[in-house]
């Protein structure tokens, strides 16, 4: 195997055995970026300076969990003095004056930060085509999208342009691109990872999580980034778990629910067959699998498209051209400066969502849209709680299809539908992981979603680890 194909734990083993040095690893990944970046285009910024700093700090941090490991970061997480654009013209030249907590934790653990990855503008989208700068291409087939909004992170991991990456997930933005790119993506319980320094999209839904080549790496990354942060008042207090303790090949007696209403939705037949075949494997390994009944996922999607735009319209009000970011040069007074700055700085989807949100929050419509959606949120959360009284996990597909072709979906609603299986999880605030379960007839990866109760990351990791062993497809890489 090539160095750039190795996982975090494999790289750590090779460093420990004296077979590879951090400098050799960094160079191998830099070479890989030079080799494939023109065709994949995962990165908005390749951060040579940060990578060199990480490498220089190796001796001091060599006991860190990620010492000498090349990691990529989505371009909506603040990096001190390094451009953080959110793939928006609004922040094209913005260099944050501080590090996000998650980025700080990576550095403390000795990570070598390779670059900032492409995404849908302000994380609003499902294909990374809403980036104001360029498209990212799926490493398994360059004519296809990598998914989104963390498409650059997922593509970078799948293409061997980093060992692992951070993404953020508001309605599926870690899991759906992970599924499309054949890698592992975990959205932790809301509040598990500090959002300090994550550029806000929808604050009650946003969560940072890892995108990795396998489940073991996901556990290692969670050990690094999870934990309470006084700088994020929604981050959860409590004892930190060692997620690597759940890396056990054992699902015997584990109760897994299969929600009939999700599997009855209109989605790709090959995806359904692949997911059901993987469920069958879990059953053979001793899991107790049962059909369960839940609220139709389309209600969660409807609630999401009120709640997320409403919070976004409020969060994005800060881009006014006064303190940082773009300021329009075509303005004679302050009011024109606001409107022209926002006209020139925001792309199509961002404007659309700001308007939906503004409308849903406006006087006379608040009760009908926002309050109603928040009540439906309660029903959806209760629905998950009810299932988790009797079950350890719920399994669904991650996405209704494999990776879509670039440019194939121009209708916003059609694009929103690609998140039908992932959105309910953010609405309920529970954790979920996408793990590769097979390939369709075009050799595009398929993802299976494992959903757990609040703080149930451990069980998810254990089941995903077991499934990974049973399926034995994790070493298959995209050929570039």
């Amino acid at each position, binding site marked *: 195997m090539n160095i750039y194909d190795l996982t975090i734990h494999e790289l750590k083993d090779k460093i420990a055995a004296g077979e590879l040095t951090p400098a050799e690893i960094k160079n191998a990944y830099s070479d890989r970026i030079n080799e494939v970046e023109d065709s994949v285009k995962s990165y908005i910024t390749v951060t040579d300076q940060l990578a060199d700093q990480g490498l220089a700090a190796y001796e001091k941090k060599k006991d860190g969990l990620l010492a000498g490991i090349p990691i990529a970061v989505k371009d909506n997480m603040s990096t001190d003095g390094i451009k953080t654009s959110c793939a928006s013209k609004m922040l094209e030249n913005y260099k944050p004056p501080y590090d996000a907590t998650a980025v700080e934790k990576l550095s403390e653990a000795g990570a070598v930060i390779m670059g900032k990855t492409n995404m849908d503008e302000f994380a609003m989208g499902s294909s990374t085509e809403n980036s104001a700068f360029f498209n990212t291409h799926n490493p398994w087939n360059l004519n296809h999208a990598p998914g989104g909004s963390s498409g650059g992170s997922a593509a970078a991991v799948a293409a061997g342009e980093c060992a692992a990456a951070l993404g953020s997930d508001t309605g599926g933005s870690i899991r759906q691109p992970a599924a499309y790119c054949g890698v592992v993506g975990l959205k932790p319980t809301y509040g598990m990872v500090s959002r300090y320094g994550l550029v806000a999209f929808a604050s009650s839904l946003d969560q940072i999580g890892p995108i990795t080549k396998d489940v073991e790496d996901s556990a290692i990354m969670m050990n690094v980034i999870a934990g309470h942060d006084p700088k994020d008042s929604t981050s959860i207090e409590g004892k930190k778990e060692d997620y690597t303790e759940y890396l056990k090949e054992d699902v015997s007696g584990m109760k897994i629910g299969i929600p009939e209403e999700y599997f009855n939705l209109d989605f790709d037949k090959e995806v359904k067959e692949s997911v059901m075949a993987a469920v069958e494997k879990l059953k053979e390994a001793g899991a107790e699998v049962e059909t369960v009944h839940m609220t139709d996922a389309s209600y969660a999607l409807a609630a999401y498209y009120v709640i997320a735009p409403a919070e976004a319209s409020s969060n994005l009000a800060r881009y006014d051209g006064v303190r940082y970011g773009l300021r329009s040069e075509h303005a004679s007074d302050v009011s024109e400066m606001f409107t022209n700055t926002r006209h020139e700085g925001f792309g199509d989807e961002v404007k659309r969502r700001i308007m939906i949100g503004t409308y849903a929050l406006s006087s006379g419509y608040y009760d009908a849209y926002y309050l109603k959606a928040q009540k439906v949120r309660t029903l959806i959360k209760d629905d998950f709680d009810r299932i988790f009284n009797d079950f350890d996990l719920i399994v669904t597909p991650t996405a209704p299809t494999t990776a879509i072709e670039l440019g194939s979906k121009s209708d916003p609603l059609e694009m929103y539908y690609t998140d039908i299986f992932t959105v309910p999880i953010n609405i309920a*605030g529970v954790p979920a992981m996408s793990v590769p379960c097979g390939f369709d007839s075009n050799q595009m990866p398929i993802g299976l979603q494992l959903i757990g109760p609040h703080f149930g990351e451990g069980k998810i990791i254990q089941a995903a680890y077991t499934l990974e062993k049973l399926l034995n497809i994790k070493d298959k890489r995209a050929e570039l």
Partner: protein
Amino acid sequence: MIDKKDVEYAAGLAQLKLDEEEKEKYTEQIGEILDYVDKLSELDTDDVVPTAYTVPMKNVLRKDEVQESLPREKSLANAPDEKDGQFRAPKIMSD
């Protein structure tokens, strides 16, 4: 169903400038999205308490003590325009 006036109103509240073509396009697209959202009315929520956060949250308080903050120079480093250590913006009030 929303019309062009609603779109103009929302855009105004959000400080967004739209050209005619955008207004037409957004009226149609946002109309379709809100039609989809209307599904929510099929669910009975009369006695349901709304949820803002899904995990238990309480107010987070800390001692009112001065802590380290960003130096002024760093805070101003991204300013589109600055003067005398402050952000500079177009005039808000007339002379």
